[in-house]
Structure formats: structure tokens, C-alpha cells
């Protein structure tokens, strides 16, 4: 496929069907380095499915997906050998699940959770792994004294921050997030959003973030894609889509929030 020379990720006509006619029906987009792309749409519109296709958690039934890695090499993600795909997934990519329990090892301490990527990529110095874990816990505002506690002893907001640290420890370039602030209290949400915003800016991450909270989209995303029934029906700069939506469906989506 053709990929714009400066894009980091390009999807063309990505498709997936759960076998019941539901899923993702032909999605194409380009993501640029440092770009934060928001995906919004009602429940069941295919946001999570699309994110899983991008993260390699689901194999698409059609379409193509290309990624330009840190060395500048163009990779066909759908044809990548499994060993290479796993390596990429734990070095250059991050995936933040909506439910932190899906993205954490609950029986392993916070330090072990954060250190896992380092160990999976050959880290064999306990002291250095632990120091990195400590640095990242601090960075996501978890008290370093909690490093040997298990995630089950953490609040929902802390679990989500731990999941973020566990992803960022390897210095990923592209992070996919599924409703990272969903299911949290409003005040906890606000704090996490702040943290995410500064991390994304400081690290220059490219991000695809799924949310049905248009407030989150406005705060974090540079661009938005609006999904309905497995398709992208509108896309553009965030302010433009939210303030001046073209499609009737987007107008409904925006107004229902304004009415709320």
C-alpha cells in the first residue's frame, strides 16, 4: 500500500466482522508523529474493535495496516512475523485498556508490572529495572513506597495510572488508549486527564484515543474521527468537528452532550 512518507501509522479499508455483521467496515486514516487522534461515536459503533485491530489484538479480515518504526523502516503490520510483532508491541507500541485489569498482571507487584517490558526485552539487572519502575511510578503520581504492592490493593485511578506506566516504561512511540478515563470518578478523571495531557506533550507521543466523552476528546485530541455502524462518517480537527459538525449524526452526538 501507499503510505505518506511522514506518517507513522496508515490504515486502509480495515475490516473486521464478529460473524454477526457487527465490527469495523472499512476504515482508513493516517496518523502523524506527535498526533493525537480521537475516536468518538456511540456505544457499539466499533471504536474498541478498531483499536484492537490497530494494536494487533484482533486480526482484520481485510484491508492493510502500515507502521513506520523508529529506524524509519516501513512495516506491514499484518504480515509481520509473530516474534517481530510481539517485540514491536512491547517496545514501540502501547495499549491502554479501558479496564486496567485487562492490562495489568493482578498477581504481580506494581514494580513487576512496570518492569515486565524491560525484562521481556532482555533487561537482567534487577537494580536498574527497579529504578526504572520507581521513576515511572513517580511520574504517574504513584507513591514509590507502593512499589511492592499488588494492583488489587490500588484504587481504580491508581490502577489506570499503573497501566499507563507499564506501557510508557519502554519509551513507546505510538500509544493506543481505550476510554482511559472511563469508569472513574469525575475528580479522578480530571487528574488523570491532566497527567495524560502532560505525558503526551512531554514525550511527543503519537496517540489514538477512544472515548465517548467529548470533553476528553476536546482536551486531548488534535483530530477526531466520528464512527457509526463500524464506519468513519466524519473526521477533521477537533474544534471543527465539535463546533461545526457536518453530519447530522455528529450534530446529534454533539448536541446530546451539550444538552447534558
Amino acid at each position, binding site marked *: 500500500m501507499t503510505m505518506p512518507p511522514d506518517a507513522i501509522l496508515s490504515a486502509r479499508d480495515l475490516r473486521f466482522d464478529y460473524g454477526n455483521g457487527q465490527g469495523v467496515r472499512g476504515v482508513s486514516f493516517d496518523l502523524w508523529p506527535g498526533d493525537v487522534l480521537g475516536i468518538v461515536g456511540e456505544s457499539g459503533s466499533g471504536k474498541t474493535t478498531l483499536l484492537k485491530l490497530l494494536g494487533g489484538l484482533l486480526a482484520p479480515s481485510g484491508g492493510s495496516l502500515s507502521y513506520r518504526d523508529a529506524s524509519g523502516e516501513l512495516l506491514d503490520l499484518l504480515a509481520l512475523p*509473530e*516474534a517481530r510483532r*510481539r517485540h514491536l508491541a512491547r517496545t514501540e507500541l502501547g495499549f491502554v485498556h479501558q479496564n486496567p485489569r485487562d492490562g495489568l*498482571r493482578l498477581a*504481580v*507487584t506494581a*514494580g*513487576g508490572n512496570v*518492569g*515486565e*517490558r524491560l*525484562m*521481556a*526485552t532482555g*533487561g*537482567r*539487572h*534487577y*537494580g536498574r*529495572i*527497579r529504578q526504572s519502575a520507581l521513576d515511572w511510578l513517580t511520574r504517574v503520581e504513584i507513591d514509590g513506597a507502593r*512499589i*511492592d504492592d499488588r494492583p488489587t490493593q490500588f484504587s481504580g485511578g491508581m490502577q489506570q495510572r499503573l497501566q499507563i506506566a507499564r506501557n510508557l516504561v519502554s519509551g513507546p512511540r505510538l500509544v493506543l488508549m481505550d476510554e482511559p478515563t472511563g469508569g472513574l470518578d469525575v475528580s479522578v478523571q480530571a487528574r488523570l486527564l491532566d497527567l495524560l495531557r502532560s505525558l503526551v506533550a512531554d514525550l511527543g507521543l503519537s496517540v489514538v484515543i477512544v472515548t465517548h466523552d467529548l470533553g476528553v476528546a476536546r482536551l486531548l485530541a488534535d483530530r477526531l474521527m466520528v464512527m457509526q455502524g463500524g464506519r468513519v462518517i466524519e473526521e477533521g480537527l477537533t474544534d471543527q468537528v465539535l463546533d461545526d459538525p457536518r453530519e447530522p449524526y455528529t450534530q446529534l452526538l454533539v448536541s446530546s452532550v451539550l444538552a447534558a
Partner: protein
Amino acid sequence: MSEDSGYNFAYLDEQTKRMIRRALLKAVAVPGYQVPFASREMPLPYGWGTGGIQVTAAVLGPDDTLKVIDQGADDTTNAVSIRRFFAKTAGVATTTRTEEASVIQTRHRIPETPLSEKQILVYQVPIPEPLRWLEPREAETRALHALGDYGVMQVELYEDIAIHGKIKRAYDYPVEVAGRYLTSPSPIPKFDNPKLSDCPALQLFGAGREKRIYAIPPYTPVRSLDFEDHPFAVDHPGHPCAICGDTESFLDEIVTDDAGGRIFVCSDTDHCRARQEGLAHDDAA
């Protein structure tokens, strides 16, 4: 068929032995890799070493001399019944002396006496998959082995150090065989792990219930997993053997009376006997 017992030589029929030998050849060709095999019912319950017994049956010849140890001892019920089983079904010579044996079946120990190129050590293995407790899905553990993707085992060791200050695992301490496969050494004490590496004898592992066979060919490098700043180390209790005075062998703790009295003695009974005889000899000289 051996005349007096009414069994085929070493109990198993020739077709089954050939099937096991094919699995063994594959295991030797890919050191540390778990080869599936069609484990047979044996006239002993699982947990009594049916995997080891099938491997022993497949490698045993009429000229072999068999030794069987359980936790280092030749005289436990388990060791005695396996030794009798093969004496009866194969008519082979048996011994308790490590250096006299050509085949040694073992549960939970490696003999203290260094092994030679002429010997085969057969291990009884309960759980062959070192990743089983970390990843219960069989398809996924296979993928992890295929890809050499062993970070999760390292996380397990990290957890030990984080919580206990050191790698606490004293038995079944995971190893990497020939720089490739993560392998369970069976529940031997980690004290024995260094003997796995560069061993002149052929080491065969049989897991009956789990239907897996694997091998460490002679002179294969075997590395116990660790961290650069927490290197693998064996710890010795520090006492000498109360019987032979050895300060280097692996010791069992034995309670001697109701008052809580206890002594430490060699777990390898043949080794202890040989040292006692040597000491008696030195005294006489």
C-alpha cells in the same frame, strides 16, 4: 519375552518402546524441548514416576545395571518397588552404587558422585512445563517457547527478590538449556542445578501424567536463570553431615526424638556410605 516373568522385557511392548525411543531421539536433538508422547498406563499410580519408568523401560538393555533413588535414597518404598519392578520384568542387575550403575532413575536428586559418559540419568517429572503457573493456557506456553519469549519467568524471579530480598525458589529452579529452551529441572534442589550443566551423562526426563519427554544431551550448557546483580547461588546449611562429616553434600534434616532433636545427614545415602567406608579405611591404614 522374559521366560519366568511372563512380561515383555522391561514390561512395555516393543512397539511402545519404539514410540518412546523416537520421542527420546527428538528430545536429544532439541535439548530442553518438551516432546509429547503417548504415555501408557503403568502398574503404578501417577506420582510414582510412571514417566521415568517408561523412559527407563525404553532405554534399558539386558546388560544394564540399574540404580533407583528417591530423594537421594535407595531404600525408600518408591525406589525399592521401581528397582524390583525392573529386576523382575527385565531381569537386569541392580545396584545402589552410583559408579556401578549404567542407568539411574531418580526422583528429586542428582547423585553427588560425578556421572560419566557411560551413564544415563532418568528423571521422574511431575510438572514438565516451567511456565505452567504463570500461563495456564497450553497454546500460549507453546507460543512462548516457540518464540523464546521468557520475560514472564524473569518477572517471577523479580517478584521473589522484591518481596523476599532474594530468589527464594529452592526446588525446581528454572534453567535455560543450550541457550534456547526454558526448562524445568524437575523438583531437584537448586543445589543440584550446577550438576545439570556440562554433564558427561545423558539426562532424560519423563512426565507420565503430562505425557512429555525432554532431554539434556551430554556436555550441554545449562544456565540457571538469574539477574546480573542477583546471580544464581547455591546455599548450603553450613552443617557437616552428622554421619560422614561431609561439608559439601546436600543434607536432609532428620528429627531424632520427640524433644525436637534433629541432625543433618547426606541426602545421597550411597555417597554417605562410600564416605563412611573411606573413613573406616583411612582409620585402619
